[in-house]
């Protein structure tokens, strides 16, 4: 093993039923470094971590750890801890109803001669550990009395005290505020000084550049590369994560129209939802298609959910057609002429055991209310009209929706919203997982709807697709709206905006 290297993983592969989750991934951790593991959602970060910590059983490849002869294969968290790998997850894995000291020592409490727990001794040792790490807590207090940041640090303290060589931090900062993140970084830097190798997983780009020494990038379960931080500026990191090379980004020409004189359809001021979206302003004019760009997990869907009332906005105001409205839940938004096609088609979109007709009329019926039921004839007429309009390929309108292909299911949901005749449609990843032909049909439909004066908020992971359909793009990063692009829409400008920073 190379000098200074604590852990190497080579050629790790792992398959979930139907999906290759990891395909020949390498990872090298050196002594006393903070190493970022980057990738979009679904790139395989969590799977890799689970392979290291013994939760997942990888099929190929080997993991070697400094000081241990031969490859290491962990079968449980405990195994991993025994070879010096400790993990702190996003969700604090501690018991809130026990004291801080107990959380540090549970499962390995010091015992007295009578074989009972030596409370005094572990309280004392705990206080010492916490003092050394510079965390000011009273260790005899219950953990639930402290903030999430402190809880997170207690979890780290527990991991460190178990003499770990490798500390894996899986999205530890996602529920912390800026001050708390800074405290965590101080702790992380302190641990680096002590020679601990930290594998840091986060989707906040700033944080990577604030503390990390090295970056490993994964994409779609594959290994993209390992780079020292100085050699991978933000734009290149984003390009590596998204799998685009700035050089091959061809311009896509598109006719631009000025919408600023059109009447306003949606005007949001300072909307926010704690923990998901920071306050943002957003104006959408009639007939305009606005795209939201950003990495997966940057708050794109959350912004849309906030407007639609799926996550109730906690601050700010929203105007629809120039009138201020209060939206507490989706039905309020529907009554104001909005519709939303959620990104998780299976969980939030289709009702699998209902027919195509029933799925289509669902939103319209909900809007009308329970007591004004649509007659069967009306339902059939609506179903026929929209099956024709969006060209749903189905055996009949009574076919169960679960028997349709993904693309056609998506069209049914689109039809559901079109049936309510919305003025404003939110489409969250409407083309994900559907074939090219259907994709372009849906894109055409979006453009056509806009031509009819409807406004569309369009979210997609494919920049090309948005460039083709959108008049304007909003860029999200780390839950914050960081910019808007209305002219010069190009792959390059969008990716630069997504990456942010000076690079």
């Amino acid at each position, binding site marked *: 093993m190379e000098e200074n290297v604590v852990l190497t993983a080579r050629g790790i592969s792992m398959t979930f039923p139907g999906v290759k989750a990891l395909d020949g991934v390498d990872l090298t951790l050196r002594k006393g470094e903070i190493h970022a593991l980057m990738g979009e959602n679904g790139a395989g970060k969590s799977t890799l971590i689970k392979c290291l910590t013994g939760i997942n059983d990888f099929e190929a490849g080997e993991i070697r750890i400094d000081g241990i002869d031969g490859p290491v294969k962990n079968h449980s968290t405990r195994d991993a801890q025994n070879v010096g790998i400790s993990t702190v997850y996003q969700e604090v894995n501690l018991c809130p109803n026990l004291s801080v000291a107990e959380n540090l020592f*549970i499962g390995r409490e010091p015992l007295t001669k009578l074989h009972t727990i030596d409370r005094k001794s572990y309280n004392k040792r705990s206080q010492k550990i916490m003092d050394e790490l510079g965390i000011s807590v009273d260790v005899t207090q219950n953990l639930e009395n402290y903030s999430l940041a402190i809880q997170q640090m207690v979890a780290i303290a527990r991991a460190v005290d178990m003499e770990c060589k490798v500390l894996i931090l899986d999205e530890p900062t996602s529920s912390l505020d800026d001050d708390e993140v800074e405290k965590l970084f101080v702790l992380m830097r302190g641990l680096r000084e002590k020679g601990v190798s930290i594998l840091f997983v986060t989707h906040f780009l700033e944080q990577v550049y604030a503390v990390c020494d090295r970056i490993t990038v994964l994409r779609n379960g594959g290994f993209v590369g390992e780079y020292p931080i100085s050699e991978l500026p933000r734009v290149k990191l984003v390009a590596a994560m998204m799998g685009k090379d700035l050089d091959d980004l061809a311009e896509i020409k598109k006719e631009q129209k000025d919408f600023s004189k059109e009447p306003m359809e949606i005007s949001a001021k300072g909307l926010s939802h704690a923990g998901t979206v920071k306050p943002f302003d957003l104006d959408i004019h009639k007939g305009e298609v606005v795209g939201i760009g950003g990495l997966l997990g940057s708050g794109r869907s959350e912004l849309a959910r906030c407007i639609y009332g799926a996550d109730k906005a906690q601050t700010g105001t929203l105007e629809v057609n120039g009138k201020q409205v209060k939206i507490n839940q989706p039905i309020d938004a529907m009554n104001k002429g909005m519709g939303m096609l959620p990104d998780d088609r299976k969980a939030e979109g289709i009702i699998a055991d209902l027919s195509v007709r029933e799925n289509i009329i669902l939103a319209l019926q909900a809007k009308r209310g329970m007591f004004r039921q649509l007659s069967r004839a009306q339902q059939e007429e609506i179903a026929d009209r929209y099956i024709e309009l969006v060209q749903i390929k189905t055996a009949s309108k009574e076919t169960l929706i679960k028997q349709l292909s993904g693309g056609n299911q998506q069209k049914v949901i689109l039809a559901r919203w079109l049936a309510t005749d919305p003025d404003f449609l939110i489409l969250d990843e409407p083309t994900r997982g559907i074939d090219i032909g259907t994709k372009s049909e849906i894109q055409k439909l979006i453009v056509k709807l806009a031509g009819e004066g409807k406004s569309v908020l369009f979210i997609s992971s494919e920049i090309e697709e948005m460039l083709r359909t959108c008049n304007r793009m909003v860029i999200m990063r780390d839950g914050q709206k960081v910019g808007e692009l209305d002219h010069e829409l190009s792959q390059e400008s969008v990716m630069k905006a997504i990456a942010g920073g000076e690079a």
Partner: protein
Amino acid sequence: MSKKADSKKSINSNTMLLLITIALFIVLYAGGCIAYGSKGFTHFQTFLNILITNAGLICVACGMTCVMLTGGIDISVGALIAMDCMLLAVGMQKGIGAVPMIILVLLIGIVFGIFQGFLVGYLEIQPFIVSMAGMFFCRGMTAVICTDQVSITQEISPTFYAWANAKVIVPFGGYTNNKGKYMAPYVRPGVVVALIVLIAIFLILRYTKFGRSLYAVGGSESSAAMMGLNVKLIKMKAYMLSSFLCSIGGICYCLNTMAGSVSQATGLEMDAISSAVIGGTLLTGGVGNVIGSFFGVLINGTISSIVKTNGKLASSWPNILTAALLFIFIVIQSLFAVLRSRQTGKR
């Protein structure tokens, strides 16, 4: 009491709940003394009688608390007691000695608990369902053993009879009756057993690895597993402990009733659960203490005792009062939970 809470800053809401329970008991008991002092409620023996009547329930409530700490529940305990009593009565009737029968009953308790615990812990079946099946099984087995009421008389087992009627004199708190005779207060052996169980479980919960791991599992099962605890085994042990304590409780119960019958101890599991809840144990697990459950039992016992002493109130009144108390306690608990989450949120 509020002053106390202020002076000690580390007092937390769980301790608060326990204090409320104890205070409530004192208020209830004092109320009983004031209202029914003339009927002898003030005598120390009245309090001891509550202990005597509820000795079995105290043991069961201790076991129930352990199970509830893990976030589970065990509703088989009432039926298990009925089966224990029936076994004891029939066994002794058949001429088997009291001691071997007691050992048998305890062993059955352990085996039954291991089985239930295995289903809950290792096969991850809902505790309610498992213990409901256990309840039906025990109640059914009781009838299989014998459908009649079987009394344990002096002829059947002189040893057991002697235990049941033994008095353990309490060296203080006696009074002289109107004939000038000193009435020494006493408890039955069952009470001594129950108090030993109470203290033992209190110490186990507080000072042993096993005890703390019950809290950990109840606090967050996944966290406990992540921290390297054997959650399945811990859960199994909790159910084993519950059934074992329940069998001890069954013996204490039998010493009071001196009989086995199919319908015995019906609904006792609910008394145990309500005692634990009134004593501050959360159904969601992770919070609770046997001392609280003990006071829960005492509160229930005091209510019945007051109603009995009154003599005119219908016997359903204790149920209604218990219902009211449960309601109040659940509301207080959730208020504390809300307050706590606000506090943590602010920091």
